């Protein structure tokens, strides 16, 4: 596998790439089992992970869908005790992303409460939630808009500082995480 094949002019939206890079850091260079329901991100996955159907050391579940998420949970049964399960899911605010408007399917996370239902199902299947992150937060979106406004007003130095302030607030945890465009949930098999 060669990492870094996807051209810069065909990259997926940043929050999904950010989430996949986070997964790489969490998986500690071990090949994960990948369940991917977003064909648009296949290239991004292939340029990061040696995809296998048999890994028991960790898993990435990308965009669980309303129609078959309960069936896909069964694919995770063989994960070893303590293995990380990383769920990347679009959240309601992802509807504003122009790139994903043409993406097919009915992601469970786009519906309010959908991810809560998924979490309970995963907990019943023996997974415990270690952490929940939101990527591309409303605060970072707001600061980016402000940065653009300042730039147009000729306040370029300030605009740049606000832009970098937005970068620092791109990720959130806890109660504000569901408000971001994309969620990254870190579960562990068996209570981790």
């Amino acid at each position, binding site marked *: 596998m060669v990492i870094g094949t996807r051209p810069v002019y065909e990259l997926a939206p940043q929050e999904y790439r950010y989430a996949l890079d986070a997964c790489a850091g969490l998986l500690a260079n071990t090949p994960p089992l990948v369940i991917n329901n977003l064909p648009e991100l296949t290239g991004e996955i292939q340029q990061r992970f040696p995809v296998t159907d048999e890994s028991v050391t960790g898993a990435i579940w990308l965009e669980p869908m309303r129609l078959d998420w309960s069936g896909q949970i069964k694919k995770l049964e063989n994960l070893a005790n303590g293995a990380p399960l990383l769920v990347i899911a679009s959240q309601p605010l992802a509807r504003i992303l122009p790139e994903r408007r043409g993406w097919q399917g009915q992601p469970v996370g786009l519906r309010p409460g959908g991810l809560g239902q998924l979490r309970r199902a995963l907990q019943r299947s023996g997974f415990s939630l270690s952490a929940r992150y939101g990527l591309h937060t409303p605060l970072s979106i707001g600061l980016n808009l402000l940065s653009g406004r300042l730039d147009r007003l000729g306040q370029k*130095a300030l605009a740049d500082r606000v832009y970098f302030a937005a970068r620092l607030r791109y990720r959130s945890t806890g109660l504000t995480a569901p408000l971001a465009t994309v969620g990254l949930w870190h579960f562990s098999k068996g209570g981790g």
Partner: protein
Amino acid sequence: MGRIETAVARLELWLETMRGAGGYGGPVAHWWQQSLVYTGPGLDWRYEGIVAGYLSLWQRTGQQIWLDKAKRAGGDLINGQLENSHFAASAFELNPASGGTPHEAAADCALLLLAKSLKQAEQSGWEKYLVAAERNLTDYFIGRLWSDEHRVFRDSPNGLTFVPNKAATICEALFELVALTGKSDWLEQYIRPTLDKIIEHQVKSGKVAGAVAQNSFGARRIEKYFPIYNARCVVALLRGYEVLAEKKYFEAALAIVAFISRWLRPDGSLPTVIYENGEVSRYPLWVAPLGDVLRAAEAVRPYGFNRNFGTTLDYLLAGQDISGGIQTARGFAAQAGGKPSTIPDLRDILHVAGWCDKAFRYLASQIEAAPLPEVAIEPFEAECIFQGKKLHFLETAERVEIRQSDAKIVYSWQKGQAWANTTRPEFWLR
């Protein structure tokens, strides 16, 4: 033996520690973004400085080992070239991704410098480096980024963004290609309109006279001036003056260096961005990247421009740690406002292959004609902060390890591995 020779010898030892399967890796800190989690090889602009640096060492010392290392680096690029002519993971701070600009053009420069040096030395095997670079320049830069309608190299096949310093790197590569292949029609077809476009982006008078605007979107120019990027325009313009016998390129190159020298601080550092109204974004104050500024200053010296950049050299050398690596910057923590803390930001002290190469290239071009001194490097450790958290940084020849105050490891990169291990979301920062 002088301090430059010692610095080069230590830096070279550090570069060796950054090699893994496929090439030189490591985390990246940059103005635009970071790439702290992807740590695998990056076939990007780091190769320009690494190959040029090794070629300088070979040419100045006559020692075969440096040519072997230049060829090994060239081999990384050839082995990592994809079917579509891109180089894998060529996007530096945007990695993992291919098609990075100016990175692939800089990699082409590396390949072409190597081909030229081997050919001049009448050594065999130079053609493969030429072929790889020509394929990338033809398929990507000319095939996908050149706009016949607007006569510019765009920054992406999507849109009409022009970035002068990136275009200058493309010109540097094309000059080398023309010299090796005799495709002189490319001088008029691609290089002259590109150099003219760069000059169109140059400020003619006032506080920032000589500066080149960072980029343009169609007719809209972005009036931000980055000294380190301006410096990257100088060599291509001088080459344009020499090859195309056009005095305006010479004047433009000198005006850029004059602009940079006016903004030098007493300690030799430079603000990262200067704006049209004279405001600055001072931080981060680059350290290792100043190699490109010194290279530009050196390039204009034969033409009688002798402004002393000695303090800049001092500033760069003061950034070298006992690991041999040179720090990236000072004051990253103040990038979004405020003042830098007394403890450096993690991104300040990080030694990044794609910045250290610039120092390596310049310093290697300045050594005496004698073998480098025998030196040793040692593990480097320091306290730092990152996103408000106090951390302990350690780099050895084998790994980078960051611990929080209770000694728990929160980030570790085993050199050679494609990804750092971290459970702390702070390090996901892009």
